[in-house]
């Protein structure tokens, strides 16, 4: 029996749970001996002209070695825009010279002997500011009354698509329109951002930093600093979570490397939690308008999604998130007409980047909201409306009106499985009974179906590298260009090699994240790792067996085609003659036994699924408690169910968090209101039920493993399911919509407003 598909326990966990992982801030590398500590002086005001920066007092503070402002960085080239289509006027500076654009914008850097001295000294930097009006929220940005980059003449960073034609909803019996907020959230990795840098006598800089892909981070740092890529050696230590916000490098990492050169000493930087919550990339941040039309018997005829993406103060990945949202606009549905349009706007807030799902959850949340509103309007069960409009089962690729080509799917089956596992009919009966009794605790049932993109071409193709070497002692090493930060690649990649070679998982070491050893790699993001990096390891193992067969054939005086792998002994033997064999280790002892390979996926894959969430809402207070979550998450063939379930668990939890709790808030002056974990409510186990995971696996033809991505699916499905459940719990009181996070106050106010509206209506008819 193959090891694939079995619940191999994570081999990396004993070290994480006992010795402790070595994160960037824990490094004791001797090259970092005597390192200085960097502390950023950051703007406390969202939008202002800088009149002066006085560093004299800070330079006299205890332990201060240097204080740098933009005036000291004349050697550095300007930071390039993140995408070629972004106008050069939206320029971000290494350190601000004349304008600060969000609370947290960097103005100066203090280098001190001890880290504790840094914050004391940073307080001594005197920044004189002339405060400007702050732009908070896309609606304000769109007015262009206050413009963040006056040279650009507008706050619109990028625009995509055209308005819907005037006759778009002609022929619809029912049309529903709703403004929907997909709120800004913070990624909150347990490990905040951190980096260390030291220059060698050979003129190369070694950079350690927490990231989701060493090779990409290295390329960015080299480009930003104007260095030949060969001069940068980037090492990724253990990484404590990323969720998309650690894709690539941040300018701080490159600047710290540059300051190591200027100061002639190694330099380290680890941000504080508040610094993380205010200056690391945020996610989501879309203001959407959904409009849906169809017939009274449940057939949707046209659907439109118009999105304003909050880009934050400077363009980052956030500006292209709406293009993914647009691509996935129709989701799982076969709407005859689909329209999408979007723009990204600059605001005086933290820049927006990728966050678990990155553009696809926003599309799913919008269309699922629209389906519920449509169902409510025509008085049909939301499950039935979905069933009527889902794309039917397909085995050949299905291309949508937005141009996405779904690889394989059976959305109706996914929905039916989720409904059946949830006991949907009984839940509706229980809900009805509670409504009739007028219980204090009402039941809400929310349904979502989703399809998303994983392993998409992010500009670097759909390929991944792997190197596999068997050693004479019977162990093996896998080098991968993917970049685990919690996913469990050490276990799964070892399983993939073991499956071909028979070498036990515990004898296979998986290495990643050192650009001198692994120069090429795509990192871990967009749920790509298994379908590309894992497939590359599989391919490497298959190729290694072929190499070994050729060499074994000579040694055993047999035809290579007559050799088979004996997994039990990790050896090759002559078919039918088990006594004539040679192990991989013995072959490695003769001559290095190693292959390097690149696997290139034919295209992205499209995992899909359906979630059913059940909440109980205390109608008097408005507080909703999630009591059940039933999910079908079809990610194709599963290599390790234990790890796949872990990905689903984490994803579901983060999705529930967005639906019920999390939101990054600013006041009207752009001051962050959620800059500590006392204020920013990430979710904990106490707020969650045990998850009910239903199995479904539709293999993809895009890679030999049949695997699709699983990292983001849970988040994408659970967010709208829980939001819908909350709304459904008070739907009988007249509520049609509550924005996320569906806090108790929001729910209570929605009920009050609906009841007042109903009374008003009753009053006017009397």
């Amino acid at each position: 029996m193959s090891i694939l598909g079995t619940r191999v326990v994570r081999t990396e966990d004993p070290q994480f749970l006992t010795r402790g992982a070595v994160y960037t801030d824990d490094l004791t590398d001797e090259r970092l001996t005597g390192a200085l500590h960097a502390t950023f002086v950051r703007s406390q005001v969202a939008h202002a002209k800088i009149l002066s920066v006085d560093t004299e007092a800070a330079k006299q503070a205890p332990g201060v070695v240097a204080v740098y402002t933009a005036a000291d960085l004349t050697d550095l080239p300007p930071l390039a825009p993140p995408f070629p289509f972004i106008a050069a006027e939206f320029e971000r500076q290494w350190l601000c010279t004349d304008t600060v654009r969000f609370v947290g914008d960097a103005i100066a850097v203090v280098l001190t002997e001890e880290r504790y001295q840094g914050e004391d000294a940073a307080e001594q930097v005197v920044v004189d500011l002339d405060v400007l009006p702050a732009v908070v929220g896309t609606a304000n940005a769109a007015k262009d009354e206050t413009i963040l980059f006056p040279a650009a003449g507008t706050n619109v960073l990028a625009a995509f698509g055209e308005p819907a034609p005037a006759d778009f909803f002609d022929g619809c019996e029912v049309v529903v329109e709703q403004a929907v907020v997909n709120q800004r959230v913070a990624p909150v990795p347990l490990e905040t951002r951190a980096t260390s840098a030291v220059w060698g006598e050979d003129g190369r800089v070694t950079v350690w930093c927490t990231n989701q892909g060493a090779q990409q981070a290295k390329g960015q740092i080299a480009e930003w600093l104007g260095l030949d890529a060969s001069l940068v050696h980037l090492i990724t230590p253990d990484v404590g979570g990323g969720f998309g916000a650690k894709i690539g490098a941040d300018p701080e990492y490159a600047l710290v490397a540059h300051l190591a050169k200027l100061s002639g000493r190694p330099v380290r930087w680890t941000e504080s939690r508040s610094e993380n919550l205010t200056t690391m990339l945020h996610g989501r941040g879309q203001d959407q308008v959904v409009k849906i039309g169809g017939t009274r018997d449940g057939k949707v005829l046209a659907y439109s999604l118009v999105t304003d993406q909050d880009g934050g103060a400077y363009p980052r990945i956030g500006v292209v998130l709406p293009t993914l949202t647009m691509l996935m606009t129709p989701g799982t549905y076969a709407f005859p007409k689909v329209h999408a349009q979007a723009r990204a706007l600059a605001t005086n807030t933290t820049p927006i980047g990728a966050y678990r799902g990155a553009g696809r959850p926003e599309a799913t949340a919008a269309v699922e909201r629209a389906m519920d509103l449509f169902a409510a309007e025509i008085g049909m069960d939301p499950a039935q409306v979905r069933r009527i409009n889902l794309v039917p089962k397909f085995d050949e690729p299905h291309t949508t009106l937005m141009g996405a080509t779904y690889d394989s799917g059976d959305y109706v089956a996914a929905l039916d499985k989720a409904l059946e596992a949830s006991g949907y009919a009984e839940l509706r009966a229980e809900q009805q009974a509670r409504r009739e009794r007028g219980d204090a605790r009402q039941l809400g049932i929310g349904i979502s179906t989703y399809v998303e993109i994983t392993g998409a071409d992010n500009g670097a193709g759909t390929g991944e590298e792997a190197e596999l070497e068997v050693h004479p002692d019977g162990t093996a090493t896998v080098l991968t260009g993917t970049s685990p930060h919690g996913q469990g690649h050490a276990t799964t990649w070892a399983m993939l090699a073991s499956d071909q070679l028979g070498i036990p998982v515990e004898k296979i070491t998986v290495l990643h994240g050192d650009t001198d050893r692994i120069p090429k790699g795509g990192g871990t993001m967009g749920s790509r790792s298994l379908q590309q990096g894992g497939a590359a390891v599989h391919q490497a193992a298959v190729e290694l067996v072929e190499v070994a067969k050729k060499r074994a054939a000579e040694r055993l005086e047999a035809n290579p085609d007559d050799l088979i792998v004996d997994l039990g002994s990790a050896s090759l033997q002559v078919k039918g003659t088990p006594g004539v064999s040679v192990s991989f280790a013995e072959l490695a002892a003769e001559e290095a036994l190693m292959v390097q390979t690149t696997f290139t996926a034919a295209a992205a894959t499209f995992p899909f699924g359906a979630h059913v969430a059940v909440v109980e809402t205390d109608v008097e207070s408005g507080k909703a408690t999630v009591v059940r979550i039933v999910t079908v998450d079809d990610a194709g063939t599963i290599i390790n169910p234990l790890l796949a379930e872990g990905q689903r668990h984490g994803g579901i939890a983060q999705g529930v968090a967005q639906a019920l709790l999390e939101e990054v808030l600013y006041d009207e002056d752009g001051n962050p209101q959620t800059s500590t974990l006392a204020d920013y409510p990430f979710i904990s186990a106490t707020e969650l039920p045990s998850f009910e995971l239903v199995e479904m696996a539709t293999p993809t033809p895009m890679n030999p493993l049949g695997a699709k991505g699983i990292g983001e699916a849970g988040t994408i499905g659970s967010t709208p399911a829980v939001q819908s459940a909350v709304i459904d719990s008070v739907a009988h009181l007249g509520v049609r919509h509550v924005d996320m996070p569906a806090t108790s106050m929001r729910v209570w106010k929605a009920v009050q407003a609906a009841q007042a509206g109903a009374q008003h209506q009753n009053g006017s008819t009397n």
Partner: protein
Amino acid sequence: MIPSPFDYVRVSSVDEAVAALAEHGEDAKILAGGHSLLPIMKLRLAIPSVLIDISGISELNYVRVEGDQVAIGAGTRHHDLENSEVAKAEVPLLPHVASRVGDPQVRHRGTLGGTVAHCDPASDLPTALLALGGSVVLAGPNGRREVPITEFFLGFFETAMEEGELIVELRVPRTGDAGWAYEKFTRRENDWPIVSAAVAHLPGGRIGVALANMGGVVLKATAVEAALAEGKSIEEAAALAAEGTSPSSDMHADAEYRSHLARLLTRRALTVAAGEAEASTAESTAAA
């Protein structure tokens, strides 16, 4: 997230603590569990020059019956109060409320005296103490004095403690198995309450009611107490819960919603304390 530099003094008796306070003056702060003080120091909202650590004073950790009162040492940790057999038998509201503070880590470090001295308007245990009545025993340069709890919490992070004083004991009436309830309304289980209501049936037949986070300081719901004393129904009395309060509007709740919660939670707490059936806010039954 790094505090300003400070000096640190560890004392092993109340007398040493009082002497240290006298020596270091108004820039000194008492450190007990540190779960309120250290976070605000890290945010540099508090910049004491000296911390006087009283966590080693074993004489401040006790729960014992003294006459018709229960005396609790100021250094008693929430976890110890939560698990005190004396407290559970004599004044069960307090150990229950202690069990609702923060998370296990906080409860193993935080102390009763610390949370009272800190005087956060959203604090659980001060609300319960206010509902119970009783007093705060302070030690200072002029010896000990006792302040009624109703006169102790003066305003936003402001108490009746004078310079040079520290809390050494809390005294509450023995309520035994009389009715009590604590309705705490949070986003997440380990959060501060958005609003909470504490109710205690007291010796002599009075009912004490107090609210958290309905103003700059924990409050007695005096209108509710008076209505109950006049024999009004729970429904009628609870409707008065927001009277005399000045709830803030912040990102968690606006004043209107806080007022609503005060009435709702007070009604529920009064009902539960009266032994009548009403679903507590904290409970949740599983769906079909």
